[in-house]
């Protein structure tokens, strides 16, 4: 099987499995789900890093660094704000149980 075929198959498989999994998330959690997914879309930071391996001219280095900064913000801010949000849900549950 050629590499192209593998990549396309991986894409299709991931899309289908993702679709199925996400369908079972209740609307209560849709905002954290979305910001978590959003953080995952920062996976493109891997692409930027790989590209830095062969981007050696000054202009391309600048573009590369900016891209990495953007992708990192996407990942780190996405995951941490999701964490904060989910803890609010959990926190409200605890308070409910204590009394």
């Amino acid at each position: 099987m050629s590499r192209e075929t593998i990549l396309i198959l991986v894409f299709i498989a991931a899309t289908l499995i993702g679709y199925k999994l996400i369908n079972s998330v209740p609307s209560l959690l849709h905002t954290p789900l979305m910001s978590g997914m959003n953080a995952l879309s920062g996976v493109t930071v891997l692409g930027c890093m790989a590209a830095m391996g062969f981007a050696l001219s000054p202009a391309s280095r600048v573009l590369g660094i900016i891209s990495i900064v953007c992708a990192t913000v996407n990942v780190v801010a996405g995951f941490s704000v999701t964490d904060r949000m989910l803890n609010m849900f959990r926190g409200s549950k605890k308070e409910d149980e204590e009394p």
Partner: protein
Amino acid sequence: MSDTVFYILSACLSLAVLLGIHWMSRVETAVRGNRLSAAAMLCAILVTFIKYDLLSVADIWIGLAIGSLISLALARYTRMIAMPQLVGLLNGLGGFASAGAALLTLGYKMDLGLFERFTALLGMAVGAFTFTGSLIAVGKLHRLISQKPVFLPRHRALLAGSLCLMALLIVLGLLLPGMAYAWLLALISLAFGLLFALPVGGADMPITISLLNSTSGVAAAITGMALGDVLLVSVGGIVGASGLLLTQIMCRAMNRRLSAILLSRSAAKVSAPVPETAPDAPAASAASKEEADVLPDVPVRAAQPEDLPGWLGEAREVIIIPGYGMAVSQAQEQVKALHDALEKGGRRVRFAIHPVAGRMPGHMNVLLAEVDIPYDKLFEMDDINPDMASTDLVFVIGANDVVNPAANTAEGTPIYGLPVLEAARAKKLVICNFDSKPGYAGVDNPLYQPSPDVLLMFGDAKESLSKILALIG
């Protein structure tokens, strides 16, 4: 690192991400799920460092460090009301990064085949329009620019034209050497993003944000194909699917078709029927008919605030319906106080959440969780609608279209067929809205007819709630 090892690691990390998402489906495990996904991402970064032998490239470390610092500030100080903007902004940054990586791949990677060139060009285009589209969405949500739909002259022709031009440039960039076409494609894609987001009105933002979330994932996946990076492709695909699914859910809940929003039909369609229904005879009479059965011909006495303590005395079952008006006036704390006060009297208090309450999917739940309202009090529309008729008292706070009974009767209006919370069926109703004007959809709400069972309080939700709280004492 050999390719085999890399594939195996990629598969493991993809599975970890999928497990993380699976855990996101329940509140109890969601925190763990999110952390697992984050850990998988960290491992993925490490794997990439080793695979491409990048540990000595200082630029990468600089980029990662700056990005992390900015993120910590963003994540810490963003208020929940601003979540849609933040998600929009992050989508845009992700899109930009994908476009950047694709552009670098195209310009500097050796021996690109036809497949790699095609995917790099496509990934760049998708990333670029995600970037500008998201910036417009953020601007609208943050009220930096007008929330109203903006149309340029011949907007739809421009939109279609730029799309065709993008396709043409991809073909040219594929067949002819050099970077000129790629740069031109980047510019046109950026412009396309602007054209795409400008006509979207404020109320359609949940759909736009979901859609851009999807495209940011797709951009990452396609760029991953150009780089031959399995991990990028699989995770990008998952994000693309999730965004698409949320877009569909939102469209269904808002009674809108995605094509209508994308082809900028929204404003034209909404404004057209409004003048026709301005007299609004069918809608108004339909609901006042119910009242008419009880009180024929006698001038109806509208409920007054003094009635409220009496209503409360009898009420056992209470439902609160918060809408975007509550979020706008930042009345979450007052809502929490109302909830506490009602519960103290031994009443069962629940919240009914319409799927589009807020500015992104599930937004209202987060706003209420922020003020420590237990999440097991929050109910989805389909779960709580059957209980409405047996509910003693319903508070509607800053919601209009989503409780408008005309959605079931007013054929030909934009909200006809919109699934609504059936607040009208409750025994007593308190409505706190800014004014009695029709909501975003422009359809009169028959609940505003004078009725002894409906207490109307117009004005800022925060002030109305304070008045109610004072009455309850």
